[in-house]
């Protein structure tokens, strides 16, 4: 991640792991230049309102733009390519993940799809 996005050079990285705990809001993160939000699909499982997520993506986008040299990196697993789940909640979550990824990708300046550590740039 550090190599690929060139964000490791002496800058302070805050790594938020969505598998472990909900993300902190931009206002609660101090002194960071790079913020990584990992496990996005797990975070969406806790809060599956797509409009709410679009607002959060926008908040981070504004945080990034508020000072020079800031970068926000979102990492998510693509969970949308398996069999359509029988369970309604599982289906809703999967749909929310797909919609959130679309809206997030529309806001991002760079989007990569990773396969075994190799990046395929989509945007």
């Amino acid at each position, binding site marked *: 991640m550090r190599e690929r996005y060139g964000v490791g050079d002496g800058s302070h990285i805050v790594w938020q792991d969505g*598998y472990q705990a909900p993300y902190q809001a931009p206002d609660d993160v101090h002194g960071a230049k790079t913020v990584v939000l990992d*496990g996005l*699909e*797990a975070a969406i499982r806790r809060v599956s309102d797509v409009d709410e997520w679009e607002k959060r993506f926008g908040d981070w986008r504004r945080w990034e733009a508020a000072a020079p040299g800031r970068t926000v990196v979102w990492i998510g*697993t*693509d*969970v*949308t*390519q*398996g*069999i359509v789940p029988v369970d309604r909640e599982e289906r809703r979550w*999967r749909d929310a993940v797909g919609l959130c990824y679309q809206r997030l990708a529309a806001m991002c300046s760079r989007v990569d799809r990773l*396969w*075994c*550590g*190799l990046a395929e740039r989509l945007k």
Partner: protein
Amino acid sequence: MIVFVSGAVRSGKSEIAEACAIRLAPVGRIHYIAAAPADDEEMAGRIRRHQERRAATAARWVVWEVPFSSRGLTASLRADDVVLLDCLTTWWAAELFVGDDWKTMKTADEAARRLLDEVRAWAGRCRAVVVVSNELFSGGVPDDEGTFRYMKTLGWLHQQLVAAAGAAAVVECGLLRVKKGRWPQ
């Protein structure tokens, strides 16, 4: 050299990997690691079909059934030989879940590192190691700890193997999509 080939269920990856191993071993032997346990009839049938496909070149095939001694395999390798591991996912499941290694992230990581070292040791002693694995990362991230750690370590193994590989590809609908290097012809 390490050759990495992945693919979805029934994508045709085993056939492509076998053809690749045969090409890479014009004179040497092919050490086939059959990692799928024959637990039920369907699986037994699958294994039989694989065996029939290999029969044409039977003389040069050496079959290693899981559990096997990785050290024994390393010791028996010659410079012209090729190792065909089919597949990493079942072998790694057998290794991770045979004891308690899956119970913490640390021990799971250590076990994955050991497995990677073994594959590297084979590659250092023969012409090529062809690793077959599965695309199983698109069905969601599991909640239970054992499966979560299995998936995480498998993803890590994929990254390390592809980084070390001379060629890496994914098979989709029987079609080979080369992602890294030149596919052995």
